[in-house]
């Protein structure tokens, strides 16, 4: 890594840290679990590093195999993370229970 790139990277890191602090301190405790699961899904971005390892030019077979495992685990992280975050946030989106008319039909037990 040449010095210019390194300095640019450090800038990116510092600014992202600052921005992250500003944005995340505004998240209410109510949403801390979805926040953790969302940031976890976002950090699954290491998937793109894994993709390169698994298939790019200039990498030997052992690297491809390591890459395959990495792609798999990172994809679990991304798909699972976003999926479950959405499931949680859907629940928080609900207003009063009356507002969701489809809430209960299947729980009624019909006696014959």
């Amino acid at each position: 890594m040449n010095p210019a790139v390194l300095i640019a990277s450090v800038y990116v890191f510092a600014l992202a840290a600052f921005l992250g602090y500003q944005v995340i301190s505004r998240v209410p405790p109510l949403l801390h679990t979805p926040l953790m699961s969302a940031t976890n899904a976002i950090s699954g971005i290491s998937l793109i590093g894994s993709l390169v390892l698994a298939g790019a030019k200039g990498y030997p077979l052992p690297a491809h195999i390591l890459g395959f495992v990495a792609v798999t685990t990172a994809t679990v992280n991304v798909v699972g993370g976003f999926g479950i975050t959405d499931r949680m946030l859907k629940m928080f989106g609900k207003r009063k229970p009356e507002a969701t008319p489809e809430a209960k039909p299947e729980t009624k037990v019909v006696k014959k």
Partner: protein
Amino acid sequence: MTITTYFMEATYLVASILFVLALKGMSHPETARRGMFLAEGGMFAAIVGTLVGAHIVTWVWIIAGLAVGSIIGAWMAVSVPMTAMPQRTALSHAFGALAAALVGIGEFVVKASQMGAVTRGALGFEVMLGALTTTGSLIAAGKLQGVIAGKPTQFRGQNAINLALAIAMVASFVFFWIQPQTVAAFYTMLGLAFVFGVLLVIPIGSADMPVVMSLLNSYAGLAAAATGFVLGNNVLIIAGTLDGFSGFILSVLMCKAMNRSITNVLFGGFGAIIAEASSNAGGVMREISLDDAAMQLAFANRVIFVPGYGLATAQAQHACRELGELLESRGVTVKYAIHPVAGRMPGHMNVLLAEANVPYSSLCEMEQINPEFPSTDVAVVIGANDVVNPDARDNPKSIIAGMPILEVDRARSVIVLKRGQGRGFSGLENPLFFKPCTAMLYGDAKSSLSHLAQAVQHV
């Protein structure tokens, strides 16, 4: 630079912006979901960009990995119950960290000889953090799932051994950094990091899991950011840093909510200490019958429910909401008081109650609800213990002294739903249970709550 490389870099920039916007959306429940759609779009763009721009020659491994990962991920997203959210999140941290560690190992295998000192440093950092987060998260998930004993596992000289191990790990990192030809140093560091992850989490009790979860979240993010430094990839740095800082902020909040330092949580082995200084916790606990409890609730003006981890283990969130709604239909004002460290991860109780359809406007934070307890007729404590222990406020000798609590003992009367007479996770006696205004209702929280609801209907 070719046109495809420009395209790839453009998608990374778009992804970075979308990630930040997504987290900004998290500041309110109304906008959070839309925010996450943006993040998903950003992730998709970055993946497409990489596949187009990164000179991919072998597709088999990529397609296989994406397919297998998507199937497992989708299955996890759909099938995991909300009560198991902490262990799922811990498992997810393990997966993410493992990916980062593997990318690091791959880069080492291929390019170690051409790396400069800075890249090598970032690589070591990435692999070390990734490896220890992987095993640490697996242990945490095991503890939360109950596969591994939740009680802290401690032995003589534990801190000394951990310290020695940490020094050995860092030493092999430094050695690898100075002498990149010595392959053994790299793999020693990797192995030690895996072991260190286990030893780091094993001595920590289940009640401290909110802090551990946040820390592991932070480490997983920092490992991804380090990957960004190794690959010279800005979107990795940005996304990893956002995750790292979010985890860090949460850890600090959780520690504050327990009035303890991070070092104390990590090395104190809290929960193993059997407190002898449980001063004024004497006397008899008064038991209450279901009908009497129901009567109290039905004729109250204001009721506050205080859920703890017991609500999650009993899966009592739906029964709780049903009782709450029933009381509301009788004109009782019902609120829910959420302590920041109630449960096993930040926000655990909020998620459970939201699942049960409790509107988020009735979920109150500690600072907001504490002044309301004196004017509350009945506070119902459901499987919570330490977060309502008045010793934290009144007894400076208590090991939880200074931890902010929900002041339920200031309510006119308190009903505690509890499985038995045992102590909480910290092993502390709770003077609240012996106060004259407190009544105990023993039994499984779920069945107690639904029986209460039935009894209230007949009042």
